[in-house]
């Protein structure tokens, strides 16, 4: 570990340097293995946040009762070492071919999507629909604000609390929201959906109801995290 960035009160990005790392593709993850002094091991997957070619970064959301994430968010320090395995994945991976991309993320589910946004070419249209609990919980908020424009459109929904005058969505993701934000399925966008299991199930079902071919929707479920 070579550095850290606080993203929100519950989320931190760790910069890693891995010997022999072969490079990654946008959307891939790695596995972190922690070994306690008594030999007990715990292994968890974390998506790669950085664009291919940039220094390796992962972004972790703390689950209060979790085994691994509180350590990575609160305790790990520069110079700490742990084992990583990767890069992993060939399904939840994006190749930029210029076609429009529709990204749907819940909480820390935005992490692999951010790698895609960071690596996209100047002509690829991207829409991100991103669900967070509160404005304070929005990961990469400043960077998303800075990148948002004609080519990269960012639609936020805040499910728990909204600041005064909030102009974005203010509810959990649903079919109506997807219909308003998504490109018509006839334009054949690439679609990536990532977040908690519950979030991904709802979003994927909503897209199928809109006429998206189920096999064209690429999904990745984080379990309890990412809602």
């Amino acid at each position, binding site marked *: 570990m070579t550095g850290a960035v606080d993203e929100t009160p519950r989320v931190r990005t760790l910069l890693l340097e891995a010997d022999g790392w072969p490079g990654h593709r946008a959307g891939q*993850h790695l596995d972190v293995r922690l070994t306690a002094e008594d030999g007990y091991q715990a292994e968890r997957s974390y998506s790669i946040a950085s664009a291919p070619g940039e220094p390796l970064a992962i972004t972790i959301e703390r689950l209060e009762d979790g085994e691994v994430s509180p350590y990575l968010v609160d305790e790990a320090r520069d110079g700490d070492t742990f084992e990583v395995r990767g890069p992993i*994945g*060939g399904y*939840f991976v994006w190749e930029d071919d210029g076609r429009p991309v529709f990204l749907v993320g819940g909480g820390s589910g935005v992490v692999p999507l951010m790698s895609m946004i960071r690596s996209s070419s100047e002509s690829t249209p991207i829409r991100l629909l991103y669900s967070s609990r509160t404005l304070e919980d929005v990961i990469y908020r400043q960077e998303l604000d800075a990148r948002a424009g004609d080519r990269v459109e960012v639609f936020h929904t805040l499910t728990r609390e909204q600041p005064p005058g909030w102009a974005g969505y203010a509810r959990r993701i649903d079919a109506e929201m997807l219909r308003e934000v998504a490109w018509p399925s006839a334009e054949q966008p690439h679609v990536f959906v990532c977040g908690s299991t519950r979030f991904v199930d709802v979003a994927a079902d909503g897209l199928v109801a809109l006429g998206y071919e189920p096999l064209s929707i690429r999904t990745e479920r984080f*379990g309890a995290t990412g809602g």
Partner: protein
Amino acid sequence: MADDRRLDGNAIGGMMLELFGVEMTTATEVCRTCGTADVVARLEVYMDAPGTVVRCAHCKAVLMRIVRGPDRTWLDLSGFRSIELRSPD
């Protein structure tokens, strides 16, 4: 709440890479019970200790069980009719 424990085949990509030596989330499997073909990334995965259970997303039949120990791995693949791996390029 119970459904929070359900993951998908992306979650076993690292373990499968280690066991099979190739990227497996894009491999196509056929379920022995219902005959449906799907890619591994789209399967249902439960990683509760001590082992991992992988189910068909269509008929929920158990396809694979994996139990890892410090010096060995036990693998039950009896729920698959077949798995088609891509040759590494």
